[in-house]
């Protein structure tokens, strides 16, 4: 059995607040982070409440200086398609924007809170990824986005409120589900500055992040078993780590450690820089073609996977900045929430600006209980399923469940052992009867009926025998598992993880400075070269573009130390184009050759058969 003596625990009669406090996380931020967990009431009092109507109209419902949590949850009937949203920063004039941006720089210098980017994300991705990235930047011009001035004003407003009262709040929730005691810690941020502050994917007003701990009860004590952190690109089982998985989960005095992504506030188990990949929002038909080409590239040509329409972004979760929690420089101010808290359950709108971004990246999120479209958030109503834990019983119940299951199968085996010989004997009797009916034409009807019954019984018998066989194998597996649990042998703590978030290794590039510079200017240089080509040699436009592209890709590959891979990929693409040309030019010859080869093959086969 699992020995619990050396593990942190809480008495089963502990209050929700005591439980939350005992296991509250230590969150370590990256140096340069501008926004930390904040309390919603102070944030809401700084906001105005708006409605966005389906016809595109926007209307203020509650002005900025009159806003409160009570006002937020007031009943507001509206037509389908209406979106309610808060506005943390009001529309800025040109002069206000300039002022905000200047004051932001001053503030950062004053706080000595400058972010050091290290190797830029552009140098981490290849040339094609950079082209896609340029398209992504262009897409932001067409989609709605939060302006840099809004980000600056948000930072200044947050800093003003933070200076007035320095407080780091989490919203804790305790749920009991299927034998598990679930502790959820929700963190609210005034702003997500991933794009404007850390070269990430998006910016939006307000941000909600969450981690969940799963405890089980044994001998009147509650023990933590799993920790699940919400993170980009991962879901289900991949989100959780076992409490004793010291490779993956840092624990300080019984408090799990979270490394928060700079600006994005995503939670990670290990400190480092995580490469998040974002797909360019493509039309369905183009995305289908890309998928088919990718499949052909990997499956048919056996080449390594790669999608040029995915852009690498870095989430910096270095953990070298401010940290909050037990024995850290700052302590938590916990607030317990549940469904009865009105701002949690009654406000279904967005907690910040609705930027009219159709792919939602720049729109503010909804609260802990809801998605942006107002539907319930699965992590709220199904915290077990959220981390793939709905199929896993708490450890003390696992043994009993397994034994019950084993006993059930055992009993069924006994039944089968009796049933199968009975059925087999019945079948033999029917077979004998059938034999007796043969050669008697007047008994044809009875013969047919009996034959039908025999076929059904034979099928039944076959299924019973298969079931007995399968149960035997199942029992063997269950017995082994039972022995393993009884002997207290733990599973591999990573066995449930299919995709593990792993920080990228610090890449040592040849000529790193040159590679960085090249990454920054290469795309523009390519456009200049193409412009020169249009001007100087328009007759050779396509050949010139191909040559320029190849030249840039080759220079890039040399700087990145990937010359061989690049040569291989470029040559393979050229081979595909050339093969298409050859097929077009010689389709008749190819068809004739194929027919002749097929004819020879078939003839050889038949002649060999004849000779034998």
């Amino acid at each position, binding site marked *: 059995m699992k020995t619990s003596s050396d593990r942190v625990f809480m008495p089963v009669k502990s209050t929700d607040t005591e439980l939350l406090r005992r296991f509250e996380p230590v969150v370590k931020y990256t140096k340069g982070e501008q926004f930390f967990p904040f309390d919603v009431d102070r944030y809401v009092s700084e906001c105005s409440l708006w409605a966005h109507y389906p016809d595109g109209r926007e209307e203020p419902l509650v002005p900025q200086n009159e806003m409160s949590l009570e006002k937020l949850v007031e009943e507001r009937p509206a037509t389908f398609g209406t979106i309610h949203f808060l506005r943390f920063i009001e529309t800025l004039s040109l002069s206000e924007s300039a002022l905000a941006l200047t004051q932001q720089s001053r503030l950062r210098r004053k706080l000595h809170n400058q972010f050091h980017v290290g190797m830029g994300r552009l140098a981490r991705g290849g040339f094609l990824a950079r082209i896609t990235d340029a398209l992504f930047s262009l897409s932001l011009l067409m989609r709605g986005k939060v302006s840099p001035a809004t980000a600056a004003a948000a930072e200044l407003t947050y800093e003003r409120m933070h200076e007035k009262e320095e407080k780091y709040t989490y919203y804790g929730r305790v749920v009991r589900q299927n034998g598990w005691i679930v502790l959820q810690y929700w963190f609210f941020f005034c702003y997500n500055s991933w794009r404007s502050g850390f070269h990430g994917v998006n910016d939006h007003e307000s941000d909600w992040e969450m981690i969940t701990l799963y405890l089980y009860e044994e001998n009147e004590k509650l023990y933590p078993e799993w920790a699940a952190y919400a993170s980009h690109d991962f879901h289900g089982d991949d989100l959780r780590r076992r409490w004793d998985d010291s490779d993956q989960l840092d624990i300080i005095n019984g408090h799990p450690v979270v490394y928060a992504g700079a600006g994005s506030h995503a939670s990670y188990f290990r400190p480092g820089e995580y490469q998040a990949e974002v797909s360019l929002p493509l039309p369905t038909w183009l995305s289908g073609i890309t998928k088919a080409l990718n499949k052909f590239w990997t499956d048919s*040509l*056996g080449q390594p996977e790669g999608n040029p329409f995915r852009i690498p972004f870095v989430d910096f979760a270095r953990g070298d900045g401010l940290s909050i929690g037990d024995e850290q420089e700052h302590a938590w101010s916990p607030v317990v929430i549940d469904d009865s808290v009105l701002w949690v359950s009654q406000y279904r709108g967005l907690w910040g600006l609705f930027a009219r971004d159709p792919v939602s990246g720049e729109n503010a999120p909804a609260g802990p209980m809801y998605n942006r479209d107002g539907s319930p958030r699965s992590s709220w109503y199904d915290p077990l399923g959220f981390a793939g834990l709905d199929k896993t019983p708490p450890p003390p119940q696992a043994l009993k469940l397994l034994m019950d299951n084993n006993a059930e199968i055992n009993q069924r085996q006994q039944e089968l052992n009796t049933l199968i010989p009975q059925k087999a004997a019945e079948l033999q009797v029917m077979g004998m009867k059938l034999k007796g009916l043969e050669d008697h034409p007047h008994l044809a009807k009875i013969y047919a009926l009996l034959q039908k019954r025999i076929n059904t019984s034979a099928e039944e018998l076959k299924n019973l025998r298969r079931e007995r066989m399968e149960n035997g194998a199942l029992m063997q597996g269950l017995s082994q598992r039972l022995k393993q649990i009884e002997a207290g042998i733990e599973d591999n703590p990573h066995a449930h993880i299919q995709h593990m978030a792993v920080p990228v290794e610090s890449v040592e590039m040849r000529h790193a400075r040159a590679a960085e510079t090249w990454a920054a200017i290469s795309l523009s240089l390519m456009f200049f070269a193409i412009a020169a080509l249009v001007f100087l040699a328009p007759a050779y436009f396509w050949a010139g573009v191909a040559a320029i592209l190849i030249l840039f890709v080759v220079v890039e590959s040399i700087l990145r130390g990937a010359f061989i*891979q690049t040569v291989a990929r470029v*040559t393979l693409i050229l*081979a595909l184009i*050339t*093969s298409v040309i050859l097929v077009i*030019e*010689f389709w008749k010859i190819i068809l004739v050759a194929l027919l002749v080869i097929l004819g020879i093959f078939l003839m050889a086969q038949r002649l060999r058969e004849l000779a034998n």
Partner: protein
Amino acid sequence: MGKKKNKTGEKRPVAVTVIAIGIVVLFFVRIYQSIKPLAEENSLRNMQTEPIFLDGILTPHGQAVLESLLYLILAIGLIIVLLGFLRMRRWTWVFLMAWVGFSMVVGLEDYFYFGDPNFVIMASDVVIAFALSQADVQRIFKIRSDTGEDII
């Protein structure tokens, strides 16, 4: 795919043999291309009498000789690559891939702009390029690791 063993005991994929045949085909094409300009200019007959340069400028005979020499060097180069390739040297894989890539760029340029491509060379290049891209060929030439990752 069937495999043969070379002298060092490493298994040689059939694709390697296909590539070797492709190189041999290219070798003969290059030999033909090296003889063709000389034959067209009757240079073989006039080798002793006609000058290569006249007033510091290449004569038609000189141009034919130079062109022929170029193709001959290419043919000899192919033999060297072939030898290295059969011994499964890594550099030959890289060299051949780059060569074939360059050759295909020239072939495509000929096709789209001059309408006079050499389809035999284009076909050989395609066969060689596809054969070189086979996972087991890349593994045996230490371009790709056994787990499928690229070895830079």
